[in-house]
């Protein structure tokens, strides 16, 4: 999952001269930020819902 999300967030696949814009920003910037938001959501979900139960008990 992280490979896909970081793959979207890192702008390796954009043509060098792509100057398209969306909401006032370069399109590649909007997509990269969206990828970062996806990483944040997935990470938060893992932390809240998938934290190992035995480590929880240690507290």
């Amino acid at each position, binding site marked *: 999952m992280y490979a896909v999300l970081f793959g979207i967030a890192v702008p390796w696949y954009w043509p060098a001269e792509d100057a398209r814009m969306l909401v*006032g920003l370069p399109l590649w*910037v909007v997509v990269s930020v969206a990828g*970062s938001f996806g*990483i944040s959501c997935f*990470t*938060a979900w893992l932390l809240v819902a998938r934290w190992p139960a035995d480590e929880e008990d240690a507290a």
Partner: protein
Amino acid sequence: MIATATDTLPFGPGALAFIGLYLVSLIGIGWLARGARQENTLRDHFLGGQGVGFFVLLLTLFATQYSGNTILGYTGKAYRIGFAWLTCVHFMTAIVVTYLLFAPKLFKLAKQHSFITPTDYLHHRFNHRGLNLLATLIMVAGLANFFLAQLTAMGRVVEGLTTLHPETAFLWGVVVLAGIMLVYETMGGFRAVAWTDVIQGGVMALGFAVLLVLIFAEYGTLAETTRRLLQTAPEKVLPPKAPEVRNWISYIFLLGVGAALYPQAIQRIYAAKSAATLRKSLAVMAFMPLCTALIAVLVGVTAAAHLAGELQGASTDAVLGVMLRHIQEQTLFGHAVVVLIFAAVLGAIMSTADSALLSISSMVTKDLYAGFVRPEASQEALTRLGKRVSTFFMLTLAALAVWLNNSGTKLTLVELLEMKFDMLLQLAPAFMIAIHWKGMRAGPVFAGMLSGLVFALSFFWVPAQGDGCMTLLKNSGFHPGIYGLVLNTLIATCGSWVAAKR
């Protein structure tokens, strides 16, 4: 000469009184934290005793991770290279992702064995004196570098607050702010640092939000900024090319892993009151890059579009001060808000610096002095020594910051930031692999760490021009620490595997 806002953003008596009151309140918190001390022990002084709850942990994590670099250094870098500095949002997010790899197990071990410093974990896991010494020296050297960057940032911010000569203002900024920090930290230890982080983190979060609104109001919409930059400096708007993409990946890995290994961040894992407290705080931290680093990039890009060519080299770190001067001149409201943003900048710098200083002090006292010189020293004696160590490092590094500034050796904040990660990254196998793989042996981990460190640092002497193998690696877009870590991991894992087969 640094083109700070020295001659452009002098605050009046009211503004200086507000900032003075803010700084004095930090000393007051240090005094309160001293009163809350439960016992005169290392654990109480360096970790605040039984641990901190969700709200304090979140804000101390936030205030510690987001520093003067985030506000000053990141706006300066975005001013220099444009939207390509968006990579900072990703590496700040990657730090929280990296915690997933080791924080749950490390937290459990820390609670079971009462760890105080990161080296306590290494001692528990490997019981290898050479490894303890090497890892502690790496962490102390890395943090001293980081602390120096924060002191430099303090001086530069104060240059923008007064009408004094830049070098005089820098000197006073470092002396006064470092002095205040030392007073509250010596009085209240970790509690004082964490409690002041609550104020500093709160002011910083408010400052970032206000900053974005102000910049739009002063310089127009993002669409106008992007179009203007596309015409004047298209390379700052267009997608990064292949070498820059490699640099992105390198940054995400270097800082994502390296900053997760900050000793002061590891100590905040130890300091969490419970696993629930820790995981909730980290979950919120996962979104902070979008509320902070992204704003810094947008501010820097706006400056690149509207203040092109006004600043050069290290002085670009002062671009925020120049923008705030423009805002300050418009209205009384703008003036008041600029004062708030400067308080946020000071908070960001001081909250990071105090955490780094406390962490250095804990490692020198517990891992070096008690570990190698006087293992029989009492808790009271060690706590007393810890305060003296803080004072020693504060005085030495403050003098170095002032000397570097006056001697004309001006490194940008991002340059100072990167240097330490090449070192800290070499701790990764010992923390992130060994905590899961019981077969990992102390000898190969030590050999790997030492080899990776030497290899990474050797790039400093490799010429930037030429066709040698090392020069090619240096110019590849990846940071030297990454190459060091590859070598380090190979030695640590293969060596452990071979040792297990014998």
